[in-house]
């Protein structure tokens, strides 16, 4: 049970405080309701580039990081398709420093042309380090546009091509700020050694005078139901063939979301899971296999990815996966197995609760989903999933016309380890 109190400031900023006197720390988490789904198709990668610029100094604070480090704090941020989330932890008596720098960058940014130029380059290096320079690194960049044709989830958050990032200008970046960064488009969570009274008072002090802004209305195209199986084959200089399956699944707040998540657990959470047991240990078709959900706000993807055992044809691996999916559709999940994945969810939830930053982030996420109170009924929702519902949801998910398949095959050219000495 995570207790918290909530208020909304006059400018629309939602403030939640979770008091945990056992910790000497305070966590400050600010979620902005903007992600790569809010980008223009001609400016892909902007939301994430923008996250980098948020550290480039604000109107009254020339450097974001320095004052925080000065008081013993640490921070980071991430951007995904749906949100941009900034977080920090510091000794709780220095809470004001965290609120000062966070409120100032909500008030107004003040980065320079040089700043923009450097961060464009940093983001390009991030793009290379995480995607282009890794074996199999571009698979997700290929899958999204295969699975989505109209919804902005078709492009990855990091960007699609380096040119969009290279061309980003100061004015359009500023415009992005004023259309998305505002108290009325954000959720602030304070957690740790902060009482609700103190938290609300300090939040109002620092954030209360920031004016409400006009948020660009979100009008995202709805992805039409997929009508036939999509397939893409690419060849890359990798040592082994790999296979990627992406099925469309319901949005985060849909009543079937938790069943989808449990299906992914039945298939691949832990060494007792079905895909690992059957396809890795017994049939030895894959050296590595994984099922997971993207869990996005709008209808997301149910993913299955695997690297084939050397010499196994990709079609054989594919067929074996489809056999397992057929069982998910047609055979009733044994009650012991269903209880197992529910236990795993409950235990992992509890392990996660030990960390105040994690609690702060989750509170922000659930508030963003509609109501922070849902944080305390989340495991209950998993418990309520029945074996019948699992079959029903699996039948809806695992249809060929709902599927995009990527064959990521080894290109016949010497690899690094074969050429270098």
């Amino acid at each position, binding site marked *: 049970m995570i207790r918290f109190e909530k208020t909304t400031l006059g400018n629309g900023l939602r403030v939640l405080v979770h008091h945990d006197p*056992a910790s*000497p720390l305070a966590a400050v988490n600010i979620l902005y309701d903007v992600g790569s789904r809010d980008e223009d198709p001609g400016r892909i990668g902007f939301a994430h580039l923008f996250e980098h610029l948020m550290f480039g100094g604000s109107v009254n604070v020339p450097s974001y990081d320095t004052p925080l480090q000065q*008081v013993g704090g640490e921070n980071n941020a991430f951007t995904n398709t749906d949100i941009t989330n900034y977080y920090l932890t510091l000794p709780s008596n220095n809470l004001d420093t965290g609120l000062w720098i966070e409120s100032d960058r909500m008030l107004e940014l003040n980065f320079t042309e040089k700043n923009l130029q*450097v961060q464009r380059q940093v983001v390009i290096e991030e793009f290379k380090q995480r995607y282009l320079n890794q074996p199999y690194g571009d698979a997700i960049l290929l899958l999204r546009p295969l699975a989505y044709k109209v919804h902005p989830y078709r492009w990855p958050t990091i960007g699609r091509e380096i040119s969009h990032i290279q061309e980003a200008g100061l004015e359009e970046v500023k415009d992005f700020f004023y259309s998305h960064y505002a108290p009325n488009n954000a959720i602030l969570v304070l957690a740790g050694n902060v009482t609700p009274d103190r938290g609300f008072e300090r939040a109002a002090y620092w954030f209360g005078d920031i004016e409400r802004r006009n948020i660009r209305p979100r009008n995202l195209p709805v992805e039409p139901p997929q009508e036939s199986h999509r397939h893409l084959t690419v060849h890359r200089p990798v040592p082994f063939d790999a296979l990627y399956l992406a099925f469309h699944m319901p949005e985060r707040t849909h009543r079937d979301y938790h069943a989808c998540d449990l299906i992914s657990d039945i298939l691949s959470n832990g060494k007792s899971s079905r895909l690992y047991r059957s396809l890795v240990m017994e049939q030895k078709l894959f*050296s590595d296999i994984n099922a997971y959900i993207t869990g996005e706000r709008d209808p997301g993807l149910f993913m299955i990815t695997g690297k084939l055992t050397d010499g196994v044809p990709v079609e054989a691996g594919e067929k074996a996966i489809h056999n397992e999916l057929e069982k998910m559709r047609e055979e009733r999940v044994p009650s012991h197995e269903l209880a197992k994945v529910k236990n795993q969810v409950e235990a992992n939830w509890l392990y996660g609760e*030990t960390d105040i930053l994690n609690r702060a982030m989750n509170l922000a996420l659930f508030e963003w989903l509609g109501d922070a109170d849902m944080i305390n009924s989340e495991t209950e929702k998993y418990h309520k999933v029945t074996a019948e519902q699992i079959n029903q949801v699996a039948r809806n998910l695992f249809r060929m016309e709902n599927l995009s398949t990527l064959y990521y095959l080894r290109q016949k050219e010497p690899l*690094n380890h074969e050429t270098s000495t």
Partner: protein
Amino acid sequence: MIDRKTPPPYGIIDKIRFPLPEQEILGNGLSVHTIQDGVHDIVRLDYSFPAGSRYASLPLTAFAVNQLLQEGTKKYHARELAEKLDYYGAVFKPWITSDTAGLTVFTLSKHLIHVTGLVQSMIIEPLFPEEELLVFLQKRKQQFLVEMERVSYRARNRFTEVLFGENHPYGRTLREDDFQLINREVLRHFWENTYSSSQSWVLVSGKPGPSRLKDLKKKLAAIPLRTEKDALPSFPDIESCPGKRHVIPMTRHVQSALRIGRLTFPRNHPDFPAMLVLNTILGGYFGSRLMRNIREDKGYTYGIGSFILPLHNAGYLTVVSEVGSEYTANAIAEIYREMEILQREPVKDDELDLVRNYMMGDLLRELDGPFSTAETYRHVVDAGMDMSHLLHIMETIKHITPGEIRELAQKYLCPEDMKEVIAGRMDE
């Protein structure tokens, strides 16, 4: 109007309160440390054995033993172990370093005794079944060949080879041929020598509750340990590879991985705490000299940092980064420039104050809650030290002077003492 120009007043962290572990030697000689703290009914268990890669003739042997403990025992088939651990919602993580290997388990307190029973069987009666071994080797070999396509992996491995020598226990890295040399007998032999060592120890953290803790200790006391001290193999001389720059050409890659560093010392060396401060200034946090210069000013990389890795009988300091291929030469030059500045100019007071506060804040985070404390404590005890080591580090952070930092830089940051590894392309 509120004053947004002036930083709000703040407090300095002077003392950090952390739970002191209790220690008990059980009848079998096993040392059990407990940190009872926290609000949730969950427990973390850390089993630690002197079974690191340095004690095996091939690094793969030590790794395979550590991984295969969970793949079948006299009492349980691999499938059963996996089923039960997953059913209890336990998180089971084998881990290994050059010196030590172990098992870390998270479990709900109510399942503690069941889960411990499974883990105990893995430690005292593993079978290393042929079939599971074959699957493991196939999987691991494929992972290895994928890793060989990553510039970061190649640079990391080559760097330890270069520093310690290709055949030194701290230097040797995994090679493709190693996969043919592993068999059940090799594994069994290594397990017998290491997982019943009198130097093994267990750390219990979280909230087991008094009666479960008692039952747990009873169980742990039944682990048969050797009574005599281990006859540890002698530590061979370090023979670094000759030559300063070692390039692994990977021409298709758009970034190069860099490692630039040198040998240092174990955790109990008198310079260790001060080196932590010097390292933080150089590359140990987001505001470090390397980050500010090479990422935030030049944009050559997504990230650059440095760290000190203390080992039982040695240690090293290294700068790590992946930089755009076209910036490789410039980035290396800037790394050396930052070392030279630290050798030449004393750190200014405002930067040092910031680093002191940042490091104290970092310790506060590391010691927040029983599980973070356990993680920190594990490294300290593993090095043969106790929590007074942390107090010593705190005192150093608070009192080190700019002069002492410069002296340390002059001693340990000479560019001519550094070895370089570059995996990727050196575009000029």
